[in-house]
């Protein structure tokens, strides 16, 4: 994205982004489009011939790797642009005896995860998420790395976590009372 010699306007927008200058709406649009192309390039590299088929009307790309299902999109928070990758792991359990150890285990796992990838809770779901400022994502491989991290980590962890926590501690009575 940074080394796009054919598009000086994009290079200029990227410089402005790196220097922390206020972006014009046209620059934001240019950067967002270029970042979405980078996500699409990753999707093509993993065998998705037509990424548009997996893109919804909000520009969110839907990804799947093994048991992991996730999304990637460009997010704008207070004028700054971010790559946001998120994958669903499991629902938060309903029983305290499972919720408390799950929360602790997620925090302990976060300690050892390399890169920007981490576990988080969105409403009633446990997710793996990575967010990165577009200003530090220099080329397609940077985008690919973030998406790949989230999806492979989720695919590796979701079944183990579900086995331990996607259940209930409630028991049926053995006999009629």
């Amino acid at each position: 994205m940074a080394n796009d010699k054919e598009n000086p306007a994009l290079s200029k927008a990227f410089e402005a982004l790196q220097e922390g200058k206020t972006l014009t709406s046209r620059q934001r649009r240019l950067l967002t489009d270029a970042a979405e192309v980078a996500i699409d390039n990753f999707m093509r590299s993993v065998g998705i011939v037509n990424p548009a088929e997996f893109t919804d009307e909000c520009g969110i790309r839907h990804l799947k790797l093994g048991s992991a299902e996730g999304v990637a999109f460009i997010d704008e928070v207070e004028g700054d642009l971010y790559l946001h990758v998120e994958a669903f792991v499991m629902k938060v359990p309903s029983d305290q005896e499972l919720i408390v150890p799950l929360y602790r285990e997620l925090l302990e796992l976060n300690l050892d995860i390399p890169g920007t990838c981490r576990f988080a809770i969105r409403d009633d779901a446990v997710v793996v998420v990575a967010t990165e400022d577009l200003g530090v994502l220099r080329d397609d491989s940077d985008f690919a790395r973030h998406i790949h991290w989230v999806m492979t980590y989720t695919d590796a962890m979701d079944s183990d976590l579900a086995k331990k926590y996607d259940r209930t501690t409630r028991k049926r009575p053995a006999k009629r009372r």
Partner: protein
Amino acid sequence: MAIAERYASRLAEQLRRGPRTQSHMSLRAILNGLGHTRRTKAVVASVHQILGAHGLSVDFTVDRPPTLDDQVAVALAPLQRAIEPVAAAEVLRPAIDLTAAADRALSATIEVRLRPADGDSSGTGFVIHADGLAVTACHVVTGERGIVRRLAVRTAKRKRGMASVVAAHPKLDFALLWLDVPGPHRCLSIGDPRTLRAAEQVVAVGHLSFLDELLEVGTLRSTVTTGTVANPAAAIHGVEWIQMNTDIDPGNSGGPLVNAAGQVVGVNVWKYPDLGAGKMALPIDYLLDDIERNVRLGKPAAAKGWLCPLCGWRDLGRKRWFCLNCGVPRGRWQK
């Protein structure tokens, strides 16, 4: 069988009306009362079943086979005791065929609908206490901002009103609500899902949401489907479900699954799409603790406390800023 039914019914009635909720008698007296002249293993085993169908629990000696002179304690099952003072007149007597079972289930079935501000979910529920304690599925009472506290209901007698959600469990997918509609309500008696057997016939009752706009005003809106139990305890993700081939359609969620005796044994909650025998009901015995707790608290306490919109836990204690069960900050979700 008629003798046994009459005897069990009379025994239950005596205990309900009498000062004591428990009675001791010899096994011989019970077997005679039920019309048996001989004591066989099968006959002794059937005592539990027959009396259990009438809300009675029977306590045998467990360390050796019972003899005819053994004293047996016959008592009202705890749940029957809990609801008895208000529900005695309205608890439905066990039926003997599926059409009667369906009739009774229909008379205790309610329609549950979220208010427009909370979402457009609708489903089914059923009354299990004459004062108006009802059961439905958790996902039916879950709107855009989590589990709701208040929602709209319509009873089998087509009375409209509001209800308060007092307990919910997203994983088991059930919710309990107290109806604001004045009672007494027709209610279903609670059966024992442990006695369900594969190939046993069951009845599911529910409201088909997509028929709402088509049905003429005044038409009965509940529908009944029958089927058989495929697996009475299919363990999936740590929960034992009643797996069956009884059709469950959109809007049926939260409806009762009733056995041939007209007793509710499960709550219809989900299905595997495109699988004939992939419909799942939550066994009613998962809910017994919550039912007892809420019967004990009573209807006046329905509005008390804070219900976590994410985990369904009700905090009746002092006002905390977060859910003590799942930790969600209260302010962010409180309506």
